[in-house]
């Protein structure tokens, strides 16, 4: 034990300085869900199968939205999607000060999204 103690005393730390050094994410890591909106056929299967109710499909407004804090990255939506519209990116979403909804629209650029805050929390703030 003493030998390993002295070895550790003069070696580099095992941890990484994360924001400046990229995180060591293994292949196939479930980071966050994203939509490739050109392929979407509005079948609403992702919304029906989401176990936490994080996904909402707006068929009339042609948008898909996900509440990032509710998403547990289980990958169920990716599994049930018939056209491979949903994609699981390896990187995690950025930290935020408030719960965020990420909205993907049909007319937006590929992988682009709009950020909105949760409406319930905004309401609470006013009171």
């Amino acid at each position: 034990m003493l030998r390993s103690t002295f070895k550790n005393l003069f070696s580099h730390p095992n941890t990484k300085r994360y924001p400046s050094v990229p995180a060591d994410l293994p292949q196939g890591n479930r980071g966050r869900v994203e939509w490739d909106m050109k392929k979407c056929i509005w079948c609403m299967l992702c919304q029906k199968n989401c176990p936490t109710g994080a996904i909402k499909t707006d068929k009339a407004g042609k948008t898909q939205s996900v509440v990032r804090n509710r998403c547990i990255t289980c990958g169920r939506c990716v599994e049930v999607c018939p056209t491979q519209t949903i994609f699981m990116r390896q990187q995690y979403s950025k930290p935020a000060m408030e719960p965020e909804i990420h909205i993907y629209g049909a007319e937006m650029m590929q992988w682009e999204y709009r950020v909105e805050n949760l409406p319930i929390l905004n309401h609470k703030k006013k009171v």
Partner: protein
Amino acid sequence: MSRISTIPFGPQHPSFLEPLHLKLNLEEERVVSVELSQGYNHRGMEYAMEKDWKRDAFLSERVCGICSFHHGTTYCQTIEAIAGLQVPERALIIRTIMLELQRITSHTLTLGHIAEAVGYENLFMQFFREREEFMRLANLISGNRVHYSMNWPGGVRRDISPETAKELENKLDEMLPKLQMLDGVVRKDSTWLKRTKGIGVLTKEQATTWAVVGPVARASGIPYDVRLSGNAGYHLEGIRFEPVWREEGDCWARAMVRMDETLQSVDLIRQCLGQLRDGPLVAQFKGHPNGEGFSRNEAPRGELMYWIRAKGESKLDRVKIRTPAFVNIPPLAEMLPGCEFPDVPVIVVSVDPCVCCTDR
């Protein structure tokens, strides 16, 4: 005659990860009696699980963070038992690999925390450093670090590719000497032995009376392991496996059983990787489960049981979970009286009290 003083220990205490309250009656520095109270972490999991049986495959993992895959697997086994599904062999092997991988992460966490309670911060850091590598391996296979979301009634949702299997095998070869070094410390180090040997003894008779399970029972001389019984969903055909057990029943024996099981799990994963054959991953079934089912599994803390009554729709009638920590925590009332006050955290942590599991 000396006065008896009462000291509340917990629910917020540096040596406890989770809220558990002990009311200690002390005569000078010696514990005379102890009262336990639980329930600070009740979340109504059993009721929440009645809502939708498909959602429960993910919700059941949230019962506990350290044995999440065991909870998910046991839930899926129960649904399979109700629906009469035959799980493909490949899915069983992948499940066994993940169960053993999680057992390693859980045991290294517990051993690290016993080391911390003993005051051996160096060993604590080393255990947690090795644990991180196994967490990364679990991430590599399942895609997530803690809640793997990999189980589904009928099989598993993610496959182990040949490259992943190779990386897993290489990493295990790399990690085994490090674990063996830590095993030597737990077995022989004088500081560690002074704080753990002969402390918090639970004899075989007491263990039988209190019906303890898992490593606590195995450290008290009861060679009982659910993995060997047919009811657990383990793939153990053609795999060499014998339960680890000891007779001392003290804190050191409990730590030793966990350390030996960690090394045994590495061996089990290697044997399972050699048995991976091509085949389907999930046995599909349509409709909703109807009827009663029961299943159990060997979680890192002991025998985990699920009993479910379904009524042929998406809602379940009743879900009953019996977690191993629920039976392992009460014997503290037998172990603590007679010990010194500074030994209390060591004894409590050595039974691995997962309050998250216990309160549900």
